[in-house]
């Protein structure tokens, strides 16, 4: 383990103390870092002489609860009371803060934060605890084995005499750092897995307006920039007339940058008015005539042809040809914007040989490299202050670092610090969407109603193609993010083929909360439901039989959700129940949705019962919150959200035509957590995939109408 040198803290403290309310994620953390003597033998944990424990969180807090769940691991292993814990955001430093599941890169995504940090933080905290215990034993003059660490104190287990951690810091700091400290036995946990034992560390700042998001950064002499970007994908700047824009009071400058034309002003409103007054001519590119209709037609033709094999067992084509009971269906999902409540923003300050960035960064290492490249600096000359993100859902983890690069390009041309602001329209129309996909499904049942063939053809753009992730994510032409959740179908079907077409289009695509599973979960769990109904079997029993003993964790969540939802109990007329189960990011989630239909096309989603197996649930309420949030996010997409193209232009621009779920539409959600001793896995994304198929399956149960296209809108055709 490498140590966190004192100068790092001082650098952080200098940032936090430079008259700027930025640079750290919690108020007061700056002072905690700058305090006197300390014990900081590694990059993650520091104990001050007053007993305060500072946890350095290397992941982005974007709502998913890392600023709570990760410190909970430290507090547990270090045996300190929860209120003693402070959180600060790690600097961009891949040497110390790489995501162990991303290789050498620092970043947050793929629901990996907890899985990455579980052992890393336990070991880091255990080392500190051991040093404090050794120091305590020496001072008490008793053997190490005779002292215990509890509630922020090292005490003699015989006499009860002891010292608070703060009093032992100076002595402990002189001791060698244990390389392989013993970890607590899980039976001794008092925080991990205990309901109510820890509370969100960010709740106070998020209820009094003091939490600092990327968009909230205010630097001395800062200017604000907005960018006019091409109206169609692939278009480039031809020429612009900025005379009227420059005449807008408050506008300082108008500059061409690679992504468009930036209007730089004293404040946001002046910048927006300047942008409105700008006249820009664009040179059409490859996306000038794109339309969703044409993309659909092109994809439909590809569905008729075999694709690259993502998985092949038996001979699905032959089994389908030989079958007398064959089902075929085409499913469609749209392009989707992430639409986090906080649109993209980034503040940049340049100095000689130095660049400092403030943003809700999801990919610090690639953002650092991208900024350095623009400026001709070394990556380590780029400092990043990772602030709260007002949601992200994948948008801020962009291999091109688009918004970071844009801000740096503007800063390069400006005199002082620059803040880049994206409007909601920029966000909805600016690309980096969840990809539009068509799915062709063919299945066959034998005479007994058992599935004997499953052929799933997917057509949709690759996220990784053409990016730095291509080598790691694309194998034999298959981008695993396209097929995840489809090629991993857990059901025992003897003849199974999953095939992929990855057409290239100028529309930019990106991971969107649960990535491939955001569409593959819907498609596979809906089509399996179709097969169950065609076979005259109960959808739960059908799934259980096909999972068999090979997938006990799928079965356990399925059974738990079904039991808690009263699966099989009669429902009044006009109501329906649907079930779905899906594994993503190594967590298992089953959901039962209950819907009411009014006989005239209207419906409501009344209740969702959710069961999750994420290994050890470190902070159970955060797990529940993420399931609730995943359900809301997935329902928005199932019911309403779509980005469409016509004549190259995006047809939506803001929440009036890109609707998302409202309070009155939020179903009651019950979350049940499967007790587990397995290492923890992620919860940020896995709540999303099952909700669309659970609701679609429930609507089928209520109406007999099968939904195969998302979004299905607030109404369905009945009968």
């Amino acid at each position, binding site marked *: 383990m490498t140590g966190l040198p004192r100068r790092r803290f001082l650098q952080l403290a200098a940032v936090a103390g430079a008259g700027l309310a930025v640079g750290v994620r919690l108020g007061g953390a700056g002072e905690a870092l700058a305090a006197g003597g300390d014990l900081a033998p590694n990059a993650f944990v520091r104990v001050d002489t007053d007993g305060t424990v500072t946890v350095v969180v290397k992941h982005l807090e974007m*709502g998913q609860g890392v600023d709570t769940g990760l410190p909970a691991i430290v507090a547990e292993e270090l045996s300190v009371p929860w209120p003693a814990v402070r959180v600060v955001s790690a600097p961009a430093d891949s040497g110390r803060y790489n995501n162990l599941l991303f290789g050498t890169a620092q970043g947050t995504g793929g629901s990996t934060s907890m899985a990455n940090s579980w052992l890393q933080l336990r070991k880091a905290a255990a080392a500190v605890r051991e040093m404090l215990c050794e120091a305590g034993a020496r001072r008490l003059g008793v053997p190490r084995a005779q002292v215990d660490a509890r509630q922020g104190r090292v005490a003699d287990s015989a006499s009860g005499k002891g010292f608070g951690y703060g009093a032992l810091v100076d002595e402990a700091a002189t001791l060698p750092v244990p390389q392989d400290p013993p970890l607590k036995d899980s039976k001794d946990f008092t925080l991990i897995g205990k309901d109510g034992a820890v509370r969100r560390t960010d709740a106070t700042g998020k209820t009094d307006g003091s939490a600092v998001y990327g968009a909230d950064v205010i630097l001395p002499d800062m200017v604000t920039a907005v960018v006019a970007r091409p109206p169609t994908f692939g278009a480039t700047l031809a020429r612009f007339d900025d005379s009227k824009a420059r005449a807008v009071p408050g506008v300082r400058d108008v500059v061409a940058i690679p992504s468009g034309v930036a209007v730089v002003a004293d404040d*946001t409103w002046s910048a927006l008015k300047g942008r409105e007054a700008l006249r820009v001519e664009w040179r059409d590119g490859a996306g000038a005539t794109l339309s969703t209709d044409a993309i659909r037609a092109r994809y439909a033709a590809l569905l008729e042809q075999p694709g690259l094999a993502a998985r092949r067992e038996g001979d699905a084509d032959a089994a389908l040809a030989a079958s007398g009971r064959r089902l075929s269906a085409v499913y469609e999902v749209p392009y989707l914007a992430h639409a986090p*409540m906080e649109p993209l923003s980034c503040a940049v300050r340049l100095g000689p040989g130095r660049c400092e960035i403030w943003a809700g960064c999801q990919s610090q290492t690639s953002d650092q490299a991208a900024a350095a490249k623009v400026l001709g600096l070394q990556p380590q000359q780029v400092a990043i202050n990772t602030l709260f993100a*007002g949601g992200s859902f994948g948008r801020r983890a962009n291999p091109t670092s688009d918004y970071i690069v844009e801000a740096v390009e503007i800063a390069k041309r400006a005199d002082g610090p620059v803040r880049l602001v994206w409007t909601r329209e920029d966000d909805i129309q600016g690309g980096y969407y969840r990809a539009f996909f068509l799915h062709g499904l063919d299945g066959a049942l034998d005479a007994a109603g058992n599935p004997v063939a499953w052929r799933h053809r997917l057509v949709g753009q690759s996220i990784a193609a053409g990016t730095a992730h291509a080598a790691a994510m694309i194998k034999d032409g298959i981008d695993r993010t396209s097929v995840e959740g489809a090629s991993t179908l857990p059901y025992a079907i003897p003849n199974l083929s999953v095939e992929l077409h990855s057409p290239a289009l100028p529309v930019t695509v990106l991971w969107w909360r649960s990535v491939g599973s955001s569409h593959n979960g819907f498609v596979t769990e809906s089509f399996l439901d179709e097969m169950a109904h065609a076979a005259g079997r109960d959808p739960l029993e059908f799934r259980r039989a096909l999972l068999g003993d090979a997938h006990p964790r799928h079965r356990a969540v399925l059974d738990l959700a079904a039991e808690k939802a009263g699966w099989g109990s009669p429902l009044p007329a006009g109501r329906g129940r649907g079930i779905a189960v899906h594994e993503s990011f190594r967590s298992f989630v089953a959901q039962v949705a209950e819907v009411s239909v009014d006989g005239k096309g209207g419906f409501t989603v009344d209740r969702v019962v959710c069961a999750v197996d994420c290994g050890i649930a470190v902070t159970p309420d955060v797990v529940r919150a993420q399931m609730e*949030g995943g359900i809301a996010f997935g329902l928005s997409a199932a019911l309403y959200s779509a980005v469409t193209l016509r004549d190259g232009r995006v047809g939506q621009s803001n929440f009036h035509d890109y609707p998302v779920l*409202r309070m009155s539409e*939020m179903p009651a959600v019950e979350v049940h957590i499967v007790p587990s001793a397995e290492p923890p896995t992620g919860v940020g994304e896995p709540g999303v995939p099952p909700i669309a198929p659970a609701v679609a399956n429930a609507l089928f149960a209520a109406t007999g109408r099968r939904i195969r296209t998302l979004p299905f809108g607030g109404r369905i055709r009945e009968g």
Partner: protein
Amino acid sequence: MISVVVNGEVHKVDADPDTPLLWVLRDHLGLTGAKYGCGAGLCGACTVMMDGQPVRSCRTAVGDIEGRRIVTIEGMRGRVIDALRAAWIALDVPQCGYCQSGQLISAAALLAANPRPSDADIDRAMDGNLCRCGTYRRIRAGIHRAAATLAGAAP
């Protein structure tokens, strides 16, 4: 110069009269608690109190509000907001938290007008405040809890 009263203080602001209050608060006064989410009155993230009523500051021109009393999340004081904040924290309502300033101000306005709202009342009052993290049910529970606290009942 336009004079605005924000959180009890009079500020002279050098802004065009058509400037939305939101940008005056954030860019001119450094009060960043009210958030930009849509700029079109569609999401509620920018909600502030004006003379005790919730308004979308992104759709309120600063030139139209001279003499009106504006209160942002930073300046909210009193029993109602205290009860709401306590409920939000007790129920761990916020996730990303970006919408919560607006949610809290809408909730405070609701409780001021209707001390014991039903679920339907809450939905009606809060449906214009979007949350992408899906904290809606916790918000609703938080409003009920705050209402109970204010009524002197055990939450």
